[in-house]
């Protein structure tokens, strides 16, 4: 299905950077030159052969912290996206297929959740609960799943009235078959494009939380937190805060390029052959 020859240039760029970030995230302890909390030099040292990206506000190696930061940022964002998609899509499809009171109840409840701005909701919950990685994933995943629910329900409601779904119902198939075998494959294209977007929103949301001090707690490194730690440096012309900010942007763009390409492949009705 994924023929090397059909990969476009933009997909190559996206794949390369996504792979690079993933590689850093997975092998962080082996490739980082220094420890993530290890103070190895002076405050805000410029880029040098010893410290490729310089050092941060406490004299820690910025490259090492970037690599460890990739690990935490990507992991939390990926886990939260996975949670929001499994939960949102399954509930959304079920609501569309089952209909009736279940649909009404779920949809109104989701409306209620969505009427509260996400960041404020997140801030309130996180200021009460301890800021561990698990809580972060749960809060982000649950909040994001409302958006996924809306999309999946709308897509599934369209597919649910097609004749082939009716044929499956007449055959006597259960809801599980209808949801996973009849509706899901046909709802995949909009969901995949949404997956890329949602992952990026999760990265941005996590970075925003960390920037506000409610996300990943020091001494753990994550990109949003690193922007916060080094932001005072900008006044003195020190670019340390821009490096994690740039990484967030690069990740966002490259993941979207990959999502676009996957979308092109999966929207074909000839199994990617045509």
């Amino acid at each position: 299905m994924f023929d090397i020859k059909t990969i476009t240039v933009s997909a190559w760029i996206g794949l390369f950077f996504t792979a690079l970030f993933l590689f850093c995230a997975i092998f962080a302890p082996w490739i980082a030159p220094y420890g993530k909390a290890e103070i190895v030099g002076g405050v805000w040292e410029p880029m040098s052969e010893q410290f490729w990206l310089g050092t941060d506000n406490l004299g820690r190696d910025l490259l090492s912290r970037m690599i460890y930061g990739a690990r935490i940022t990507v992991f939390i964002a990926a886990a939260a996206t996975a949670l929001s998609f499994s939960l949102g899509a399954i509930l959304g499809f079920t609501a569309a297929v089952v209909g009736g009171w279940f649909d009404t109840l779920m949809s109104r409840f989701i409306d209620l959740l969505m009427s509260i701005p996400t960041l404020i909701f997140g801030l309130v919950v996180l200021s009460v609960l301890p800021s561990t990685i698990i809580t972060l994933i749960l809060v982000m995943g649950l909040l994001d799943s409302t958006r996924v629910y809306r999309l999946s329900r709308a897509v599934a409601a369209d597919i649910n009235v097609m004749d082939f779904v009716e044929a499956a119902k007449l055959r006597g198939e259960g809801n599980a078959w209808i949801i996973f075998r009849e509706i899901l494959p046909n709802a995949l294209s909009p969901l995949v494009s949404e997956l890329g977007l949602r992952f990026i929103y999760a990265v941005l949301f996590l970075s925003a939380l960390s920037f506000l001090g409610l996300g990943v707690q020091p001494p753990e490194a994550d990109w949003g937190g690193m922007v916060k730690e080094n932001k005072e440096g900008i006044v003195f012309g020190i670019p340390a805060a821009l490096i994690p900010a740039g990484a967030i942007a690069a990740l966002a763009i490259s993941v979207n390029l990959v999502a676009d390409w996957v979308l092109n492949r999966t929207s074909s009705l000839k199994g990617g052959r045509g």
Partner: protein
Amino acid sequence: MANPAPKHDGRLLEIRNLRIEATSYPPGEPPKNITIVHDVSLTLERGKVLGLIGESGAGKSTIGLSSMAYGRGGVRITGGEVLLNGRDILKAGKRGIRRIRGREVCYVAQSAAAAFNPAHKLMDQVVEAALQHGTASRAEAEKRAKALFRKLSLPDPDNIGNRYPHQVSGGQLQRVMTAMALCSEPDLIVFDEPTTALDVTTQIDVLAAIKDAIRDTGVAALYITHDLAVVAQIADEIIVLRNGKLVEWGDTQQIIKEPRQEYTNQLVSVHRIDHQEKPATSSPILSVKNVTAAYGHGAIRVLKDVSVDIHPGQTLAVVGESGSGKSTLARAITGLLPPMEGTITFAGRTLANRLADRQREDLRELQMIYQMADVAMNPRQTVAEIIGRPLEFYFGMRGRQRDARVAELLDKIEMGKGFADRYPAELSGGQKQRVCIARALAAKPKLIICDEVTSALDPLVAHGILRLLLDLQAEEDVAYLFITHDLATVKAIADSIAVMYRGEVVRYGPKSQVLTPPFDDYTDLLLSSVPEMEVGWLERAISGRRMASAGN
């Protein structure tokens, strides 16, 4: 509009060596050019009607649109000349073409419902072209439009223009569209299958209206259709097309009476299927008794006290116009729309009203085939998965055993094993419907409900499907409930017939009895509305009618 005196011996449209190409993108290969129309030439004189006929893919719409210098969906006019009023419009440039379209040549689309803008009133859309080209003031154009509405026998011609497209019926909308084309007084109108989407009883009205309008205004027309019987009523000359090539061109009378080409002969000859009517048995397989069903919690009754029987291995045809409740009857039998009153007995058992309460065995023995085969199959499943699923689901077949049975079923529907790995998008219309038949057969049903299974297909393909269904009935002893509006189909395959009108069965019995006079008014209307391949049929049919069709 004021035409210059015809200085080119009455020739309005002349197409010379028209060649139309498109680029296709086959999988895994570089894009290649395919030729859709191969050097077709034709001429049309002022005030004459030329019929273009052929099956889907014959290039008839493409040729028709070329007379407006338009290529639909990325096709390119790569060769030839299209002379309209003596000048080549392919060389007219964007502005030149804009001056011609809507003024000298107008277009009537197949689906008027999709072609009208739902946000504007009909009158605004009807007079738009005339106003754009400045050929009439608004008052004049509206006056002309109202006169046309009257000529096309639309109800309340003075006020119908104030309605929105959704406020008139399909047949009326098609006539409004004809009025729209005529309003700017063009020299040529392209009719692209204007009656194909309509009921037979409505089609006859629209046809008559179009014919009168053409005669009275003296406009020339290209009439595109796949139905030879329809075009025979309207056209002076007929061109038969196949795969973008001209097969035969001649006088209407000559084409339908003495076709010179083999292909034309195939189209013209009535495809009679000899079907021996079987006598009713004492124990029907399905018995519908006094069923009443309604939408909206009993608010709109669409089935009123309907009772019919289907006997094992036989075919009951349910006929009627759209809105007569024939598809609703199928939904009531399958349990998708639980009836309010009445009972349905199947193979000696009383069926539960709701689908969810039925036994798996009941579901297996009662299968359904849909009108639109392409949406009746999951586009993400291969043919083998589609046909194999009922085998897994009802009989627990797996692996090689299932594959063998799938191959056997593919063989039954006259398709080879090579189709097993294809996706529905890679099949033709007829093949899709065959796969749907195989899926229904896989369950070894006792009854198959066929909901308009041939109405979306070309006549020759539909004929093949009917033959297949009859052969399968003989082999598998399966009964059909055949829902259709096409009486020719009914005559070919039914053992008994139920005629439905506004939710009620108005005539029911063995085929020979239902189709023998004396008829009630509605059955008479239905029977007399089926176009016959004979010049002058339309006038006779209209004058002999005893009631107006519901769509009028």
